[in-house]
């Protein structure tokens, strides 16, 4: 009886220790915990960047020292549908005080969607150490951690693009080639099942920008949010492996991810490439391009016919 009690105590202690470890340790070295970030606020080699969707979120209180990037102007080109140009990217990074050896930590609202977009763009331009705050802004806030409205001032950095990583990005023609030749590539649609099946053109409240509804032929569907726990933190590596393996994605073949405009798929791109270490490219043209392109096949499981009401 006493023995059982002791074993029980030991088990409880082990469980507690495991729980504590999972609470503080991050799922990958590309993911930092809120605790880690709190301890590195004054680290001159760590630069924190907030990319939030809603205006005024950063301004009304951000993590001390964090720099604000506006996704729809800073991280894209305004007059070409494209990610930010190399010249503007260098200027942007330098203004934030980023050097080639700076650790850049992204976080944002809306489950880190656009923070992940920022991380993808930074990886594309070859920034070496790019990480994401586990649980994003919501977790930092929920833990009652420090926020400030003061603007950061960092000495300008000297970041220079050494090499871009074009393999992180694919275009319509690349995806079309995969679809038509049946190349050994997994295509992952990370939108909601209703969008994937073609029952709807866009999520509730979002502009319907495409002429066709459905998905890229051959694509499998794992909604982005299945990769995170209720508090927005990433699931464990084992859980994530299982999740994607359940639709046949195990990293043995290159992967293409897409969504509607490329923001939610940045999140899944991050999970698959930065946490699981798979070879993943993002098709940021996504459904707003594919569903509008002429002569491109789609799969529509719902039988939605465009134009008929």
């Amino acid at each position, binding site marked *: 009886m006493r023995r059982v009690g002791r074993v029980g105590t030991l088990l409880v202690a082990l469980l507690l220790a495991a729980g504590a470890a999972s609470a503080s340790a991050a799922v990958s070295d590309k993911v930092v915990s809120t605790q880690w970030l709190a301890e590195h606020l004054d680290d001159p080699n760590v630069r924190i960047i907030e990319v939030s969707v809603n*205006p005024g979120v950063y301004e*009304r209180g951000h993590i001390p020292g964090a720099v604000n990037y*506006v996704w729809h102007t800073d991280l894209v080109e305004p007059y070409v549908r494209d990610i930010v140009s190399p010249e503007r990217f260098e200027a942007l990074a330098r203004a934030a005080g980023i050097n080639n050896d700076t650790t850049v930590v992204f976080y944002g609202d809306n489950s880190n969607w656009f923070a992940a977009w920022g991380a993808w763009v930074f990886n594309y331009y070859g920034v070496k150490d790019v990480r994401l705050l586990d649980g994003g802004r919501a977790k930092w806030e929920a833990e009652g951690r420090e926020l400030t*409205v003061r603007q950061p001032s960092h000495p300008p950095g000297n970041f220079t693009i050494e090499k871009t990583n074009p393999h992180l990005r694919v275009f319509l023609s690349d995806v079309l080639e995969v679809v038509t030749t049946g190349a050994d590539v997994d295509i992952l649609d990370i939108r909601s099942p209703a969008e994937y099946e073609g029952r709807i053109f866009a999520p509730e*409240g979002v502009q319907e920008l495409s002429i066709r509804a459905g998905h890229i032929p051959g694509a499998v569907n794992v909604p982005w949010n299945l990769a995170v726990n209720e508090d927005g933190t990433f699931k464990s590596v084992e859980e994530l492996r299982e999740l994607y393996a359940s639709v046949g994605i195990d990293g043995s073949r290159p992967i293409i991810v897409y969504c509607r405009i490329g923001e939610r798929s940045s999140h899944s791109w991050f999970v698959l490439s930065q946490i699981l270490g798979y070879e993943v490219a993002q098709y940021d043209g996504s459904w707003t391009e594919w569903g509008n392109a002429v002569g491109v096949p789609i799969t529509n499981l719902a039988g939605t016919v465009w134009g008929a009401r």
Partner: protein
Amino acid sequence: MPVRELYQGQHPLTPPPSDPLVGSGRRVGGNYGAIVALSAGLLAAVAGVAWWLHNVPGLGAEASMSLLIGAAFGIIMQRGRFCFFCIFRDLIEGKNSGPFYALLSALAMGSVLYVVVFGAFLPNPATGRLPPDAHIGPVSWVLVMAGVAFGLGMALSGACVSGHLYRLGEGYSRAPIALLGTLVGFGLGFMTWRPFYLSSISTAPVLWLPHYLGYGGALALQLVLLGLLALALMRYLPPGKGQGVEDGRPGTVGDSPPDARENPQDSGRDVRQGSREHGLQSHGGEKVTLASVWQRVFQRRWPPGITGAAVGVLGAVAYLRVAPLGVTSQIGSIARTLMTEWNLLEGRLNGLDSFSGCVTRVIHTISNNGLLISALVVGSLAMALVSGRFELTRLTWRNATTALAGGILMGWGSMLALGCTVGTLLSGTMALAVSGWVFFGAVFTGVWAGIKLRLHRI
């Protein structure tokens, strides 16, 4: 029986019988203590809900702050009679600029504090970016037209949208009718938005003074303009012994819009009181007692300068913590949601959702703005009770019809102007937006025309 008749002369905090503010001798018995307790209970209820909301996931601090800001706005508006229509009418009809200084004070205080907030939100105003969600709108003839319509609606219905909200708390029975009209007006606004957007708003400049002058320059210009207005209006300040009453009709409850009789009298009273009675500042020798402080805070109208400063501080606090002050967002959203559901409106309106202002959305819940205006009514009600201003006014077919028509004009105007006297005039001008000043001028013109046409006497 009007509540004011419940006030009892025996309570230690009850004003002396000579005070004309409470019921001109019509006070008969009742229990003032119970009324004070009821008011305190109302405010405590708002605070309690705010405390509870603070911990509700998905609502949190912003919802809680919205509630508190709303209650504070209601308290300030009721205690200072911060009613745009009354302020304008006292000047136009009563040749009394006294209350107008509340507005100037609000804009001056608000501008200074807005610049402090802007400095943190957007350190460099020259980049071409605008500070997040500040009410800086497109400047076009549509804005002028909307402002004039809004002003006419104010004259017709007896108050602006915020005025009706706080006077709802005073038992003003035309207020709900006017607010219903505002809802209808918003619907008409959505239906007529497209041609105005295409012909004018889509290409109208969004002018923000700091973009051209920097924060310092823009603030200096703003304060000079406000100072010049203050200087020009000095000649309309009533002479010392309370001669500011032009409309001295007896305070009977009748068919005429109550505001037409109440407010000039009020301002007259206050002026009289200020000069004859012991002001804290003017008569330093007067003994300050609990009763005199109680009177000043809870029974007499707050001085315009203090009322305005409080509004200015509140405006900046609201912008810093939640969003610029505005009172039409929830009303407009209800209209938009209903119309979308009745298939009168498509989900998208050209360009509408790309502007900052009192934004409307298709929603099925109460927004932060809804919490704000609800708390505003409660805050005003609590103060109306304590100050003896709560009185259910009589509704007639005639004054209900004018309230409805005025409300429709105001709803239409504030839809096209992306806000009302609070959202576009106050929050816009405080934000150093040209659209705020343009709307200010247009609304004033509309009220002026409305009064000259005697719309407020219909």
